[in-house]
């Protein structure tokens, strides 16, 4: 079974047609980047995968759960599919350590000592072991985002969704976050990344999806080929705008 399967998915906000006839399959271990102009439905698409947005029609299977089925418990999907947000969304009232351990303790009901040890290992991996007792407000954007990644990893998810993880960061912070993401990708994590970091898409992505106006216009396994010769006119326009600014 594939990790994520969209079949003929439509999404409306009232009359606004946000996602149009989405068909997309993502295999386990794949790193898929989604690019496109703003308002093209990238984030909406991503947010349907862990049920933060409901689809209007079609079929969406994530880790063998049917998300179109109203009886499906969304919390079970979210346990298995992590999410990293543009604005980090760390819990402002909890320390860095507690941010990471809250999910494993409350949702997975795991042992506290064990969870904390793993949390320190994760913080070590993202280079923030000495920040464990601080609060999110005391950290820089890049540090917060690395904590957010550690928080989603602590749940040992089957996949992680990244919603423009570096868009809110100062330029000099971006590299550290992308390095952490690359490390995770190398370890075989299934990742869906909405991003404007074309370098990351090229280096790390196994596949690239180009969206515009709620549609998937291109879905290319040859990432470098896509950047060098995009087929769709909208993609050509987008790429040339990004590369020539």
């Amino acid at each position, binding site marked *: 079974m594939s990790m994520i399967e969209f079949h003929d998915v439509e999404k409306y906000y009232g009359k606004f047609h946000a996602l149009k006839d989405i068909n997309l399959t993502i295999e386990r271990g794949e790193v898929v980047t989604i690019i496109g102009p703003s308002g093209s439905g990238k984030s909406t698409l991503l947010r349907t995968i862990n049920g*933060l947005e409901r689809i209007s029609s079609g079929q969406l299977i994530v880790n063998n759960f049917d998300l179109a089925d109203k009886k499906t418990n*969304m919390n079970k999907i*979210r346990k298995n599919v992590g999410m990293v947000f543009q*604005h980090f*969304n760390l819990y402002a009232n*909890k320390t860095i350590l507690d941010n990471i351990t809250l*999910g494993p303790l409350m*949702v997975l009901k795991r042992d506290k000592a064990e969870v904390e040890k793993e949390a320190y290992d994760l913080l070590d991996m993202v280079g923030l072991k000495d920040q464990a007792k601080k609060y999110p407000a005391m950290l820089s954007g890049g540090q917060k985002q690395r904590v957010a990644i550690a928080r*989603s990893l602590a749940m040992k998810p089957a996949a992680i969704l990244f919603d423009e993880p570096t868009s809110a960061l100062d330029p000099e912070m971006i590299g550290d976050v992308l390095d952490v993401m690359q490390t995770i990708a190398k370890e075989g994590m299934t990742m869906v990344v909405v991003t404007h970091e074309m370098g990351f898409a090229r280096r790390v992505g196994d596949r690239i999806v180009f969206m515009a106006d709620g549609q998937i216009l291109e879905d290319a396994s040859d990432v470098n080929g896509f950047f060098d010769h995009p087929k769709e006119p909208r993609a050509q326009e987008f790429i040339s705008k990004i590369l020539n600014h």
Partner: protein
Amino acid sequence: MFTILFDHASELFSGLGYTLGASFIALIGSLVLGTLFALMEIGQHKWVRVIGRAYVEVVRNIPLLVITMGFYVIVPMFIVQVDGFTAGTIGLTIYTSAFIAETIRSGIQSVSSGQMEGARSVGLTYYQAMFHIIFPQAIKIVIPPLGNQFINLVKNSSILAFVAGFDLMYQGKIIANSTFNTFDTYLAVGLLYLIVTMPLSYLMRFLEKKWKTA
């Protein structure tokens, strides 16, 4: 004024006791009710929101005196006999709960929606996220307006005087009527209210400062 205070100390302090009692009960009651209706106002089901909203709008737009009279006059006619203290305290609780609900609702809604999404995205349920993430942040925000509500509540407890609730205001009225020393009596009553509200005011400021740093 001091003559009044000393000569009528027992009545005044008994009144103060009733005022404190009614205020304390109403404070706890309205905080519980207010939190409940605040949660309903932002609830996940439409009809729950409608009920929460309707309660708040109806209650906060009726004068406190009318609500209290309702419990003192109408409830005994149909349901059960209640004394003035009970009717007054219930009226005060219901009335204040609508304002507290609005205060808490706005506090919860001023916590960034990303906090809820962050919590839901790791699989916490709505109520777990509310309890562990949203509420602790909202509390800090609502402490100052909540303090206003609590102080208003203590002062509004003078409504008990209208339904024979034996509170401070009620005793003041009786003393003023028997001594004809209206000025001094109400001065003493005012002073006794201050003795209750000032520490409350400072307590809220203390909590505000204490929780700001965390």
